[in-house]
């Protein structure tokens, strides 16, 4: 098996709220991302997806745990020089194409900002590459002097992609890159990401809540619930044969654009909503809503274990699959 590009080991990110309260945004998450693969990360809002992404690339200092990138341990807390050092290795594309671009900068300035800060390329070369990237993401090179508000949501997301990829990173975290876009435009952005991934050999962590889209783009799917990683496996395995009771409910709730399928759907209903991540109780985090909860579940959190035989990978954190 090839060496992973990113190794996330027992990564934890807590936020302190006042003196007594702690938000367990990400708790003890471990998994690997292999070179040139796309890992989809799903989970309900507030489950910690964005925080995990930001902690991996150093936008948040870690509370505990480590991230190893291309065999090198990343710093616990990033300084400005660390960001500069890793800018051409790791990048993040953000959810909101409206607020993530500075409205007072031209599109050319936005895209060229990264390479200028890095200072490894001359001005003429940067200018040339900026125009090249605009074309590459399906915009017009002559758009360099326009401002973000002159573009539609889908076009702005392309600008965000150009801004991240002009730095030629190996690894890109896309945090809900299509959630704010209309259906017809989502497919434009997804196909563009797919083409660029193939031509540049990118490795992607693709965060989204649209399960069908995640299945479409990903090689493997990781599922988070309340700060914990609860299931991970090949995309179709997780989608068509979910193991964790929460993943089962999540996929059972995913609307399909197919009335016949919807009419025959049998509902696995769960009660209630995702609990607060403040001061989490011991035990399985899904216990308060799990239709299959047992006594043991409330005592100690189940660990993420491989339940597949013959060298395959199927990671699940649930007592239903222990002692098999």
């Amino acid at each position, binding site marked *: 098996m090839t060496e992973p590009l990113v190794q996330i080991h027992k990564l934890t990110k807590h936020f302190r709220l006042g003196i007594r309260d702690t938000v367990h945004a990400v708790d003890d998450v471990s998994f690997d991302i292999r070179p040139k693969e796309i890992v989809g990360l799903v989970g309900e809002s507030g489950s910690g997806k964005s925080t995990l992404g930001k902690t991996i690339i150093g936008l948040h200092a870690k509370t505990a745990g480590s991230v190893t990138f291309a065999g090198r341990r990343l710093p616990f807390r990033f300084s400005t020089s660390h960001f500069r050092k890793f800018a051409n290795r790791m990048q993040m594309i953000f959810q909101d194409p409206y607020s993530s671009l500075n409205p007072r900068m031209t599109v050319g300035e936005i895209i060229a900002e990264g390479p200028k800060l890095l200072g490894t390329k001359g001005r003429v070369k940067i200018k040339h590459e900026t125009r090249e990237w605009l074309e590459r993401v399906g915009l017009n090179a002559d758009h360099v002097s326009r401002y973000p508000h002159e573009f539609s949501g889908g076009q702005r997301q392309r600008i965000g992609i150009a801004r991240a990829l002009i730095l030629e990173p190996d690894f890109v975290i896309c945090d809900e890159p299509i959630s704010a876009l209309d259906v017809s435009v989502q*497919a434009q952005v997804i196909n563009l990401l797919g083409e660029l991934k193939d031509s540049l050999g990118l490795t992607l962590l693709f965060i989204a809540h649209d399960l069908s889209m995640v299945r479409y783009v990903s090689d493997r799917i990781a599922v988070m619930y309340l700060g914990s990683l609860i299931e991970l496996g090949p995309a179709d395995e997780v989608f*068509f044969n979910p193991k964790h009771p929460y993943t089962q409910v999540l996929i059972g*709730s995913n*609307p399909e654009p197919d009335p016949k399928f919807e009419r025959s759907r049998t509902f696995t209903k769960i009660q209630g909503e*995702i609990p607060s991540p403040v001061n989490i109780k011991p035990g399985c985090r899904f216990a308060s809503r799990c239709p299959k909860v047992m006594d043991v579940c409330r005592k100690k959190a189940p660990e993420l274990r491989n339940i597949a035989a013959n060298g395959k990978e199927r990671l699940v954190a649930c007592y239903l699959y222990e002692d098999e």
Partner: protein
Amino acid sequence: MTANSLLQVSNLHVEFTTYGGIVHAVRGADFHVERGETLAIVGESGCGKSVAVQSVLGLIPIPPGRITQGEAILDGHQILGHQTIEGKDIRGNRVGMIFQDPMTSLNPTMTIGNQIAEPLKLHRKMSGAQAKKRAIELLEMTKIPEAAKRASQYPFEFSGGMLQRAMIAMAIACEPDLLIADEPTTALDVTIQAQILELIKDLQQEVGMGLILITHDLGVVAGVADRVVVMYAGEILESGTADEIFFAPSHPYTLGLLSAMPTNRRDVVQTLMPIPGSPPDLFSPPEGCGYAARCPQAMEACVANRPTQFTVSDSHFSKCWLHHEACEHRVLEVQQV
């Protein structure tokens, strides 16, 4: 359409005057809802879904808004420009409404129970005690646990999904004939969305009301709609039963939307087909077919001539020149797998 549809909207035109010019938000929309039926209005952001429905109920600001043409008949009564039918309020009484953001209809300084009781006192002339009792029953109907306790809480004490339930309780309090739900689950997670949609479906059957569901999510449409109208750039381009729209789409735009979405069939490798470009500017809408600039099947005639409505079946209509008998081409068929 039947002679006595619950709601019948014809040839609706709505404009807004803005500093950038006049926005032609709705450009000739026809739709109807029957009693007990669910009609979904789908389309991309800004295509006029909310304005089409809100203008009928007098919910758009006038000015800058203006209904320039059209007719809307609710249960036999002309309602455009009217707030009441035979002296009784339409909104909150004959027609209930739920929105994407519950806080647009909830008052943050009033308990949930009192807010639900309010329309009952107003429209149903219930006493305070009666209305309060009914409010708790309604919260129970929307499956809010510990309804009596919850009734005395304020909106900030409710989660997003619970607020949506409370708003539904308020909307159905007066047993409306028609419920309008504008993106009721767009802000919610899928598991909560599934709960809320189930709830709306159950209540609709229990109460027998007509439902207009406005959404951009074709997955949600497939799960709840009897009939569907597809809007684009202020027009209704196609309408039909849910099965007709999903399994025999007869407009290139509907086909384009469906081909741009992932579906989950095991062992089928799908390639998403994006629709190039973006919707037209409604300040100066296209003269001919609104979809011509993006349509892979566009013909010369489409650019200058606005398509008329063609009948595909008794329940299925499409505004596309490909259905004209003189046209040699046909709407491409769905790639059935």
